[in-house]
């Protein structure tokens, strides 16, 4: 992260006389002089943020939007006072992109297309930064947002208090965090949430199309079938699925998010953009197409949800498939699969929901469904 600190303050808007502060001390002059603030509000160039209830709100924490491993270490080893001092010291050094960064960029791309087609609509993605961090880190975070040209106009820095109340206040549709506990809290409150991990290598993802991949059981659907499988084994699972082929699966924590994606997709279809729709959804499930997959498809159909691609792996490892798809985010309830995906460089997020959390997959038994 060897970035010239002086260049940090460039934002999305034309800043005619920006005199970025190289040091913390003489910031007064640069901020007071910046007529960009006036231009920001008066100009028609910068789009207005939508009302939370109209938008698809994605809340991300600072640790998944950016890479903050170094700072985390300072916090863990030296405590909070030192951590905050470190952050303020490095205020003009932007963070590097984190695991959720490509996803957020892709959301912005979709927004741009939506605005072209529907200039007055508020049905857009709205990205809110919701972080445990203290406001001391605020300036560094804002600098980073500006540096990367991200369109994030809303944030909550809760200074240590629980972010869950704020998630609700923002009508959050999806919450991404590095902290499994907070994610679980959110899920318990009925908010779709997942934990993200930084891959060692990152495979390139599309810059024009948002790709979201979902596991089936315990993500889109409830963990009902998982439970049968874990308790009684594969055969019982197949039997159960056959018997209940026509009974819909119950919904899982990410069903709502798929739904809102579908709504936005339909807006593109309505204007003739079905073939080049900038949103594409994938089902990547260990279920098999010939048998247990049928129930999944019937359920989706009954919910009125379309998936662009459904991949039934019948137990085959998911990594290679994800490498082909290159999703901006892949949701799975099993850490085993998330880790496998991350190893291949795919961006994966763990949904800590259902029975798999109590009885995690053992690497030795790679049984198919």
């Amino acid at each position, binding site marked *: 992260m060897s970035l010239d600190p002086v260049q940090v303050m460039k*934002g999305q808007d034309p800043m005619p006389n920006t005199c970025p502060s190289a040091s913390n001390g003489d*910031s*007064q002059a640069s*901020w*007071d*002089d*910046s*007529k*960009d*603030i*006036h231009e*920001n*509000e*008066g100009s028609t160039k*910068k789009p*207005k*943020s939508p*009302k*939370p209830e109209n938008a698809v709100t994605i809340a991300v924490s600072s640790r998944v939007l950016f890479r903050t491993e170094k700072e985390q270490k300072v916090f863990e080893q030296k405590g*909070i*006072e030192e951590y*905050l001092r470190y952050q303020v010291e490095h205020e003009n050094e932007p963070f590097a992109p984190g695991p959720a960064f490509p996803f957020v960029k892709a959301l912005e791309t979709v927004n741009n297309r939506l605005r072209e087609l529907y200039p007055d609509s508020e049905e857009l993605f709205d990205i809110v930064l919701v972080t445990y961090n*203290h*406001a*001391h880190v*605020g*300036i560094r975070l*804002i*600098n980073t*947002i*500006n540096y990367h040209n991200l369109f*994030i*106009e*809303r*944030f*909550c*820095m*809760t*200074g*240590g*208090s629980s972010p869950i*109340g*704020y998630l*609700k*206040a*923002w009508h959050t549709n999806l919450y991404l965090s590095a902290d499994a506990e907070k994610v679980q809290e959110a899920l318990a409150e009925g908010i779709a949430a997942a934990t993200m991990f930084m891959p060692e290598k990152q495979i390139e993802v599309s810059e024009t199309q948002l790709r979201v991949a979902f596991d089936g059981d315990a993500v889109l659907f409830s963990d009902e079938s998982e439970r049968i499988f874990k308790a009684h084994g594969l055969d019982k699972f197949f039997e159960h699925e056959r018997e209940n082929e026509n009974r819909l699966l119950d919904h899982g924590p990410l069903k709502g998010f798929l739904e809102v994606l579908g709504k936005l997709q339909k807006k593109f279809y309505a204007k003739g953009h079905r073939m080049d729709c900038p949103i594409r959804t994938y089902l990547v499930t260990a279920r098999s197409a010939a048998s247990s997959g049928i129930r999944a498809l019937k359920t989706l159909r009954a919910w009125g949800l379309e998936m662009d691609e459904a991949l039934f792996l019948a137990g085959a490892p998911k990594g290679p498939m994800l490498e082909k798809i290159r999703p901006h985010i892949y949701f799975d309830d099993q850490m085993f699969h998330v880790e496998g995906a991350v190893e291949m460089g795919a961006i994966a997020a763990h949904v800590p929901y259902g029975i798999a959390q109590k009885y995690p997959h053992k690497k030795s038994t790679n049984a198919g469904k």
Partner: protein
Amino acid sequence: MEDEKNHTGPLMIALQYNDLFDLDSISAMTASTNTDDAVPKDRAVTFIKAVQIVNERLVEQNKTESLLFEVILIAKECSEEIKMNIVESVKYYGLEIVKIFFCKKEELINTLQLNNVKLFLSTDKDDVYEVLHIGIPAAVLYEQSDDHVLNQLKVIFSGDVIGFSEDSLDSLSDFGFSETQIETFKEAKICMKEFAVLIGQMRRKFGQENSPLCICVLTAWGSTNVCASALKTLREWGLDVDEAFCLAGAPCSPILAVVKPHILWDGGLHNMRDLSAHS
């Protein structure tokens, strides 16, 4: 730092009696002959208790601390009976009120000025706005819907008022704010500074965790750059912020309901019509 102690002295906050006591209970009292005390309202009580905790913690650190909160009560146009009941109730409920001023309606401003009140708190936004307009620091005593015990005094500063520079504030006329409103924001910024400097000194006596004082900045409507500007300005004034919120036009109430502040310094901004309706 010794000089600071000498010319700071107590941080005086003024409350009005109708914000502290339930008026209905007072009139009920005068009607009947029983001597029950006026019932204090939750939101004022939680505020006073929170202030008390800050004072206790400050004194814990330094027995001769002079920069403490002092709460005074102002009662306008009261009958003798009500006056007595207020005095009794304050004693009865153990509310740390340093002085009670009984005055006429027109004397409110005078009373505030004469007593070097550093902050006038009211639940009435129009009152706050009027007082601010004259240049006396004023803020909203915010609704605490449940009587949960906060062992922290939470103060919110408006990122919009602090973050916009003088010139930019003028540009607010594009958004429908009147001249007087804009003047009031400028006044508010000056007032906020004095209060911020004092409370910043207090805040620095505590660490990041377990502080009885929590400072927040809420930018209801300015961009993230405005918020960053507010954070930097406050830092220059000696006030480190704990929590920051940037709303970019989203409604404030859901967020405020989670933050649960005691003191809301909005400079009169949130008294305004729905700004997000601006196209």
